[in-house]
């Protein structure tokens, strides 16, 4: 398993992983601070969103607490032309690519089903049917290759695609088909598997008989396991292998071993299926605490951490107020964008509902 930071925040590159260390060598203090700030920010956001759900402001919340290292590290390693096909828990990846956090809250509140423009953010919509996105990513990556944007030798020109799936989703047939399509087409596609150990109440032993980083081997997709709670390992592995993929080396799989500290969603009760000792064991491996220890070893002091905490509070206040202020969507949205071209049945039903609603108003 690739680990560059131990639980005490001690940075060490094992000799067999020196190429990953060389990636980290290119980072500076500003990068480290950015990683920390975003991990802390997305956790504070997560806590606030959970509170908003408890107060009835969101229909559902899907916490990513514990997975910030895997998400922020890999998210920052994705290039500014690359495309990202997330599952539904990648809030941390979203903020590394400029997705408005309110877009995610709008979806969870029931204002829309996503709605952001993936052509702008390159961060595609959340996929609620598990693993469906892996095939969309595989198709997108085929298109990138058709466009001649792989292995041109010009790093400014080439691009790659990354899809995020969980340990539970690896059981779906669509993941196997995506691995196969990516392999036979030698597509520029990264499979980033966050193994957070739990698929709602099914543990990873229910999901797989072999380590997940080996799941692609039979299809011809090599893989590596990394410590997903080590933001530097996540960054280095994603960066190195995405760079390789862009040069035309074909698909790759990263298994980021992490842990879902929170519930599956706000509708879940993990106390029914897992022991608190297990949760405590993983809390000790918390990616944010670990990275704070690393930063303090680098001489970064209280001022920075206090500022990050304050920024988190400001963010929480801002999203709280913005959520309260979200207007309900107009009734017409039921009928908008069902199709791109005009459709007589949808048009007739839109008109019917408008007439019906006005007739009710007339009777008031």
């Amino acid at each position, binding site marked *: 398993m690739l680990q560059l930071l131990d639980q005490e925040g001690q940075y060490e590159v094992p000799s067999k992983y020196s190429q990953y260390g060389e990636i980290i060598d290119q980072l500076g203090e500003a990068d480290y601070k950015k990683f920390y700030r975003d991990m802390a920010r997305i956790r504070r956001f997560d806590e606030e969103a959970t509170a908003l759900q408890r107060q009835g402001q969101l229909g559902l919340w899907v916490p990513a607490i514990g997975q910030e290292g895997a998400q922020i590290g890999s998210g920052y390693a994705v290039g500014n032309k690359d495309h990202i096909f997330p599952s539904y828990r990648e809030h941390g990846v979203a903020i590394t690519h400029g997705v408005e956090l309110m877009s995610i809250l709008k979806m969870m509140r029931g204002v829309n089903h996503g709605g952001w423009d993936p052509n702008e953010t390159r961060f*595609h919509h959340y996929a609620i049917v598990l693993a469906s996105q892996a095939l*969309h990513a595989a198709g997108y990556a085929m*298109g990138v290759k*058709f466009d001649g944007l792989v292995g041109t030798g010009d790093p400014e020109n080439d691009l790659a695609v990354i899809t995020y799936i969980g340990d539970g989703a690896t059981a779906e047939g669509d993941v196997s088909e995506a691995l196969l399509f990516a392999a036979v087409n030698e597509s520029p596609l990264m499979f980033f598997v966050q193994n957070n150990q739990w698929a709602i109440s099914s543990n990873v032993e229910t999901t797989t008989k072999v380590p997940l980083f080996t799941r692609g081997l039979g299809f011809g997709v090599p893989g590596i396991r990394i410590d997903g709670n080590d933001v530097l390992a996540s960054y280095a592995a994603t960066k190195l292998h995405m760079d390789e993929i862009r040069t035309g080396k074909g698909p790759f799989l990263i298994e980021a071993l992490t842990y879902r500290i929170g519930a599956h969603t706000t509708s879940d009760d993990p106390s029914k299926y897992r022991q608190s000792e297990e949760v405590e064991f993983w809390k000790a491996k918390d990616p944010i605490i670990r990275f704070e220890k690393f930063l303090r070893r680098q001489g970064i002091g209280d001022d920075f951490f206090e500022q990050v905490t304050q920024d988190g509070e400001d963010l929480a206040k801002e999203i709280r107020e913005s959520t309260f202020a979200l207007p309900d969507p107009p009734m017409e949205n039921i009928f908008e*964008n069902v199709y791109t071209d005009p459709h007589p049945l949808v048009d007739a039903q839109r008109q019917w509902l408008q007439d019906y609603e006005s007739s009710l108003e007339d009777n008031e």
Partner: protein
Amino acid sequence: MSNYTELSIAKALNKGMAKAMQNNPKVITFGEDIAQLGGVFRVTEGLLAEFGEKRVFNTPIAESGIVGTAIGLAMRGYKSVVEIQFDGFVYPAFNQITSQLAKFTYRSEGSLSMPVVIRIPYGGGIGAVEHHSESPEAYFAHTAGLRVMSPSNPNDAYWMMQQAIESNDPVIFLEPKRRYWQKGAVNLDQSPLPMHSARVLLEGKQVTVIAYGPMVTTALQAAEIAKEEGISIEVVDLRSISPIDMNTVLDSVRSTNRVVVAAEAPAFVSVASELAAAISEQAFYHLEAPVLRVGSFDTPYPPAKLEESYLPDADRILDAVDRVLAY
């Protein structure tokens, strides 16, 4: 002067695809055995030679993968025309079609269009083994976000294929496989009708028979027999199964006042049921008899030696015609 040529439905579909691919370099086609072999029904024959392996290629035998990657390719600006080898093989792709392809435009509030055509040879009557003779149109017609169409003759096959590829929405394109070899004149210059128009194929006075796809030929046979018995049947070819061109349907109903809907699919919760309900709602005072459905039975598709008894034929349509005339 229009330029006419005699083609089979299979060849007309092939020529329609080739035309669309000539017009738009973003149109690509893929599926199982569609490249060198030209598909098991040879509908894509010659396309590999004309357009090359970057635009015409075989895929792994993985239907969900075929449709799922077509979605990703649409996001990258490609228009995929994919072949599902037989009707009974479409179900492994059901999630990708109904929950993904059909919903991305809605999910993205219009940021994404999904111009994907899914070609499916469908229907029975060819003496095939299980899973090769089914009529799955109701599943797709029931799904908002999809368009569903089925040509009944070579001219429509040629033009409807091009319209489906031209569309910015996903289209389930159902090809009447037992009619693939049926020949007819194709006007290479002028499209007969807009994409979603139904058509009165045969004018008549006493009973409207509505059909689509493979059953249109059967309906025309029934009308021929009825004519000898002095009964005048009007045949409406629906062409588009979703949306349905109700104006053309209702015009015919208002003139004949009696309706039979014929389709190969089991009648329970079917396109024929939808037509019966919509006609009753929208033309109740024009009806002299209940709308009758002639479909196959609500059983699994039977072994081939029984399909002649299972599928509706001209006689079963005429039996229903007699019943609506008895009112």
